[in-house]
């Protein structure tokens, strides 16, 4: 798979840099300006989640292309304490940090595919957004 970038997340500057990288990759993949912003917003929330709960981690960004569709895949990994109850964390309004509780469910609404795997040794969030390609 080509075009993969790995962005370390350990400070608030990384949140901005990573979402801008993501916007760039989304633009190259042919997403509209509106979709680029949506993707950047989702990356921002996920990166923020890493900082808040795990302190550090990384986000992998890659563009993928099939004959009928193109897309962006965002994989956020950390070795933090993990999410105790993933189902609950995906509910609107649920937050353990006193934040707005929009992180995961908000990002999920912005993307087409969203998957969370979490255990005591870390969390991986994989999210994808697609667009149709007409040949």
């Amino acid at each position, binding site marked *: 798979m080509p075009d993969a970038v790995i962005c370390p997340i350990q400070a608030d500057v990384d949140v901005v840099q990573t979402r*801008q990288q993501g916007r760039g990759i989304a633009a190259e993949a042919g997403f509209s300006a*509106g979709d680029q*912003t949506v993707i950047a917003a989702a990356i921002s*929330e996920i990166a923020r989640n890493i900082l808040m709960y795990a302190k550090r981690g990384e986000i992998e960004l890659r563009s993928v292309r099939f004959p009928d569709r193109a897309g962006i895949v965002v994989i956020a990994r950390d070795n933090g304490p993990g999410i105790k109850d993933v189902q609950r964390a995906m509910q609107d309004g649920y937050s353990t940090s006193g934040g707005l509780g929009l992180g995961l469910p908000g990002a999920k609404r912005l993307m087409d595919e969203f998957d969370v795997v979490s255990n005591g040794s870390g969390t991986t969030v994989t999210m994808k957004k697609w667009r149709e390609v007409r040949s």
Partner: protein
Amino acid sequence: MEVPILKQGTYLIASIQSALTDADLSQLREALVARVGKFRARGVIVDVTALDVMDSFAVRTLRDITHMARLRGAETVIVGIQPEVAFAMVQLGLTLKGVSTALDLEEGLAFLDAKGRERGDRA
């Protein structure tokens, strides 16, 4: 990156020039709340036209600025939210409840003028 804050009459205008980190946003909040007192400002405009993304932290900070400035006697209006940023905000479930918004700087100034007249401020 520090956000420049201009003083125009009894208004403060903070015009965001680029994407901001959380630290930059917090710094903007502190600076605005302090300057409302220093310049005896009655109105604050935050121009977010150049902001790439409005995520939960940005929204919370803008809300804090509005409420803190109001406690200090100044009305705040957020201007320049771009259409795609508005779309992403709605999808994320982010609202700016209790926060005034206007299309652009011109509308924002008109809004503050109207608020001032309502309050009986001298021009």
